[in-house]
């Protein structure tokens, strides 16, 4: 879902760069007051894992693949603000070092994958806490948040292309939404599997990021 260079018009990518810069700024302000030193290497290793996992493209339909985004996984583990920062760092490296995602599209990619995904998953997590209780809420949020964040990210990606005049609306939206509805299922499944593993083996890691009240 990484948008390349040359498909968004300047007004579109510039406004999205502004929105993402504001979101990352807000996330930095939030994280600055809450982050503890012992949490820093854990956030780093989760970011490294997401970077690596994003290289594992799996086949979705003949000729098309998908890969984990990882924002939902990060959000459930470390909270939306830190997840946004970690994800943005991953996207920055992919963009500048590997040209995966365009330089001019960096703000759009941060918005579609990091900001939207963290926000969506945080909302789903809050709702599921209320509905199924604390125990299962993380897994429910990983599954639903994972699917929803990929699906919504694909929809906003398409709308950005449409507003840029690159593609017409329906002929782009229908395949984008349907392919990513499938990729989202994998995102949800991988997120639940990873969460189940980490919560089972090292629940203390997740507890270390819970806000102290």
């Amino acid at each position: 879902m990484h948008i390349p260079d040359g498909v968004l018009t300047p007004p579109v990518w510039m406004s999205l760069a502004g929105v993402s810069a504001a979101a990352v700024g807000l996330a930095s302000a939030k994280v600055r007051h809450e982050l503890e030193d012992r949490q820093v290497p854990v956030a780093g290793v989760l970011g490294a894992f997401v970077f690596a996992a994003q290289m594992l493209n799996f086949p979705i339909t003949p000729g098309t693949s998908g890969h984990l985004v990882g924002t939902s996984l990060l959000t459930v583990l470390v909270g939306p603000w830190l997840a946004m920062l970690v994800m943005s760092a991953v996207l920055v490296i992919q963009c500048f070092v590997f040209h995966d995602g365009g330089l001019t599209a960096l703000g759009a990619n941060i918005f579609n994958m990091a900001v939207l995904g963290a926000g969506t998953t945080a909302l789903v997590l809050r709702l599921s806490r209320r509905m199924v209780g604390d125990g299962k809420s993380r897994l429910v949020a990983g599954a639903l948040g994972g699917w929803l964040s990929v699906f919504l990210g694909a929809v906003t990606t398409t709308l950005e292309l449409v507003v840029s005049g690159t593609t017409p609306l329906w002929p782009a939206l229908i395949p984008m939404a349907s392919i990513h509805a499938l990729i989202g299922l994998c995102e949800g499944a991988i997120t639940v599997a990873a969460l189940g593993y980490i919560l089972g083996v090292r629940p203390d890691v997740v507890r270390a990021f819970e806000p102290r009240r």
Partner: protein
Amino acid sequence: MRKFVLVGLLISLAVAGVLSHFASRSPDGLETVLHRMGVGEGKPPVPAPFPDYGIPVLGSILGKTVAAVLGTALAFLLILLLLRALTRRGPRASSAKRGENA
């Protein structure tokens, strides 16, 4: 916590360096749709050192492994540096503010 970080790093490096060779090479959802609609990628304004996770001089297999391992290590280090910078400034800034108010 240290063990979690070390084991997690090893798993990530193995995923990047080894498992990535078994990943699907098909274009992703967005690439497929753009290609079908005849939309081409634009030229990047600044060239990246290892475009598409490859280092041509090292060949396709070693090049990808090295690029992937470098990227994974870089992700870890960049996040560490950024968050350290944030937290280091944090307490000082807030204590300075508190000083002003008092």
